[in-house]
């Protein structure tokens, strides 16, 4: 190891965290050798040039998300920070993640179906009824309703982290309208174009076919099994922060990108209003939340949805992906019961574990948590996006007190989790590799007859040194994720 390279590792303390690239003694892990060689060899000017090219390309292609800040009159449109040192997952490791993902999503789907039909899991005492009835995302409208192919979640995004030993844990399930597909695909095309030699010599599992499977999954939901179903992607509109993703997916899958006002309800069917008149829509891939879908059924002042959509849905004339009401299973309190669900519905032991979680509605969990708040992470159960969190080890006494009071006032609003020592991966900052915490959002696609996990997924990076918050709304960045195919 040369002296020049040695100096890079002064940033590194690999003692307390698992590092994706380096072993405990700072040797490069075998599956990272090619990547490490490539980046260690590059001179700062070259790295800077690549970075500039990448930024330029992202701006040109409009790979941006919109940030609405309270003190800003103009929303910020910014490129998501993209780090070009890929995250690499060896094949055998991925295979077990893939099995775990399929097992988990299958159980979650069975759970949601059960909740809106027999509720056997409640009757058998596995999950308390209050978890369901009190759940913000429970949709009574879905009770007893048959959804096409019994598929509730065409697309799910499951977030994985690794602890200091490198073991994978599920951090949360995103089952409503998970996003990040476009960053995954754009990240891959940027890497394959800007680092083509490295990419081509690395035998990376293909992700293009997954888009085709995504489309097949949507098509498989068409009621009456039409040969040529009309599929639309329902977006809240161009001002939505994930609009780039909506446009990207519609374009790649060749489906129509529509807003609520482009759709019409008539005779228990949904029609698309276009130059050719009204055409019946078979499948809606929606990227807006339940409460905005149909002002007649949910939030009555919403202008984003389609009045009557739920009637058409009940009549079996339209498929909605993901189905309304899937949020009942991605609530942070229900999360604690997912391992039990897996055992209950499949009779198998979970392949992927949950992060140890305390349900604060339970007395003994609550008492333990209140006594140990300085070591725990506390999350609100009805909010997503990294807001409303307490990170105990990093919080002041005052913050801890505030949270303790809030927990005592309304314990069922919170869960607490062991603070995980998130694994880290090197990012390129100022011409040197520096370790930053990461997680991994894995995307699972489910159709009428098949289940598919997109190889790799979206690695999210907390760019602030020492920070554990990876959400892009909180300034996190992303990396391309390579699953080695040999």
């Amino acid at each position, binding site marked *: 190891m040369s002296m020049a390279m040695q100096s890079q590792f002064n940033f590194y303390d690999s003692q307390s965290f698992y590092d994706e690239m380096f072993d405990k003694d700072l040797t490069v892990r075998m599956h990272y050798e090619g990547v490490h060689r490539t980046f260690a060899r590059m001179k700062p000017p070259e790295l800077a040039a690549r970075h500039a*090219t990448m930024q330029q390309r992202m701006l040109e292609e409009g790979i941006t998300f919109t940030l609405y800040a309270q003190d800003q009159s103009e929303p910020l449109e910014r490129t998501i920070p993209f780090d070009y040192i890929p995250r690499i997952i060896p094949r055998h490791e991925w295979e077990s993640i893939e099995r775990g993902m399929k097992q988990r999503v299958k159980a979650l789907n069975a759970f949601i179906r059960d909740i809106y039909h027999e509720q056997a899991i409640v009757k058998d005492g596995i999950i308390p009824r209050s978890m369901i009835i009190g759940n913000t995302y429970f949709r009574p409208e879905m009770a007893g309703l048959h959804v096409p192919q019994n598929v509730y979640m065409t697309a799910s995004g499951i977030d994985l982290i690794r602890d200091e030993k490198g073991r994978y844990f599920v951090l949360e399930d995103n089952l409503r309208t998970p996003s990040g597909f476009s960053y995954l695909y754009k990240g891959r095309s940027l890497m*394959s*174009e*800007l680092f*083509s*030699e490295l*990419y*081509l010599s690395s*035998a*990376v599992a*293909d992700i*293009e*076919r997954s888009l*085709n*499977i995504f*489309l*097949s999954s949507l*098509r498989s939901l068409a009621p009456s099994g039409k040969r*040529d179903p009309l599929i639309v992607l329902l977006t809240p509109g161009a001002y939505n922060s994930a609009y780039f993703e909506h446009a990207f997916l519609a*374009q*790649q*899958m*060749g489906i129509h990108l529509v807003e609520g006002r482009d759709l019409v309800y008539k005779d228990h069917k949904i029609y698309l209003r276009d130059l050719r008149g009204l055409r019946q829509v078979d499948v809606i891939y929606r990227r807006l939340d339940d409460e905005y879908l149909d002002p007649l059924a949910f939030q009555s002042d919403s202008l984003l949805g389609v009045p009557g959509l739920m009637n058409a849905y009940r009549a079996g004339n339209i498929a909605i992906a993901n189905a309304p009401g899937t949020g009942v299973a991605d609530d942070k309190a229900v999360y604690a019961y997912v391992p039990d669900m897996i055992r209950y519905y499949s009779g198998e032991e979970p392949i992927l574990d949950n992060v140890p979680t305390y349900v604060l509605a339970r007395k003994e969990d609550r008492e333990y948590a209140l006594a140990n708040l300085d070591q725990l992470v506390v999350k609100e159960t009805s909010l997503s996006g990294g807001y409303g969190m307490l990170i105990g080890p990093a919080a002041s006494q005052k913050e801890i007190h505030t949270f303790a009071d809030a927990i005592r006032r309304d314990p069922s609003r919170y869960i607490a989790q062991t603070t995980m020592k998130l694994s880290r991966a090197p990012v390129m900052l100022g011409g040197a590799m520096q370790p930053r915490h990461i997680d991994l959002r894995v995307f699972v696609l489910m159709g009428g007859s098949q289940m598919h996990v997109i190889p790799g997924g979206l690695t999210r990076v907390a760019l602030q040194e020492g920070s554990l918050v990876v959400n892009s709304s909180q300034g996190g960045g992303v990396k391309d994720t390579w699953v080695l195919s040999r």
Partner: protein
Amino acid sequence: MLNRNAEALFWIGRYMERAENHARLIDVHFHLQAEDTLAIPRSDGGTIKQTLCKWGRIVDALGSRSSYEQQYGSYTEQDVVHYITLDRDNANSLVTCVNHARDNVRTLREKLPSELWDVTNGFYLWLREKQAGDLTHESPHQFFSRIKEWTSLFHGITQSVMPRENEWHFIECGRYLERTENTLRIMQSAIMTRSLSPSEEGDNFEIYPYLQAVLRSVSGYQTFRRYYADGVSPDAIIEFLVLNEVFPRSVHFSLHELDAHLRGIELQEKQLRSAHDRIIRQVVKLKAELACLEREDLQMDPEGKVTGHLLQAAGQLGAAFAQTFFRFGEVSA
């Protein structure tokens, strides 16, 4: 207009289109990973399994495998990229095509909009400066994107400022005849791939990236999706590339454009007019054959007989052009 002017114009259209197609094809294939084994039909009717990596396929699609092998021997990325782009000894390389187009524009400078000379000359001068290392070490994708920008600029200028007279029609005839041939060549490589995939509907797992590359190389991916949705199969792609009526790089579309521009050419000389009519009839006959082609004909064609026949017909059209309009000119294909 002189015969040699007509010939020069026709070849300007051809060379510019060829440069663009080469850039498209190599750019897309560059990002393909799979090193796979393709069945290569042997002249004695048998089939040998031999490893032909994507680089071999690129050379194959550009129709010059034997000359490449004589010169370079094996298929490596560096060699193939150099051969296709910067090799001045390769009659089909990018730099040769652009150079020929520029020479031809030069002989016609007084008849053509000056902007056309400026762009062709600029294109050539830019390309001449490129070294093999520039392509592979930086971003090949950016290089090929620039090539497409240059050719788009050229076509944009012809579109927006050329009078719709014989000069214009000759350039366009060259362009669409070249495009017909190119699309057919790309399809032949798709047919080779089809012979590898399982016959039943379903898992094109191995060849999916390649099929997608075929579509992307003609920028047909999004249009294809609109017509075939998730049915990405070699059969569907071949059908799309031959028969689609609205996709501007399909064989159908190119032939119809060729026909229209051919009819746009106005001739005074009686003898020439009857020869001109003969070519038009030849194109009409080919269009009719295409109209009679069914899905099944293309699917029942494992050896690529149909595409082979179409390619041959396109070659005959090129020859007919030469005999009719150029007469004394050398045809340099």
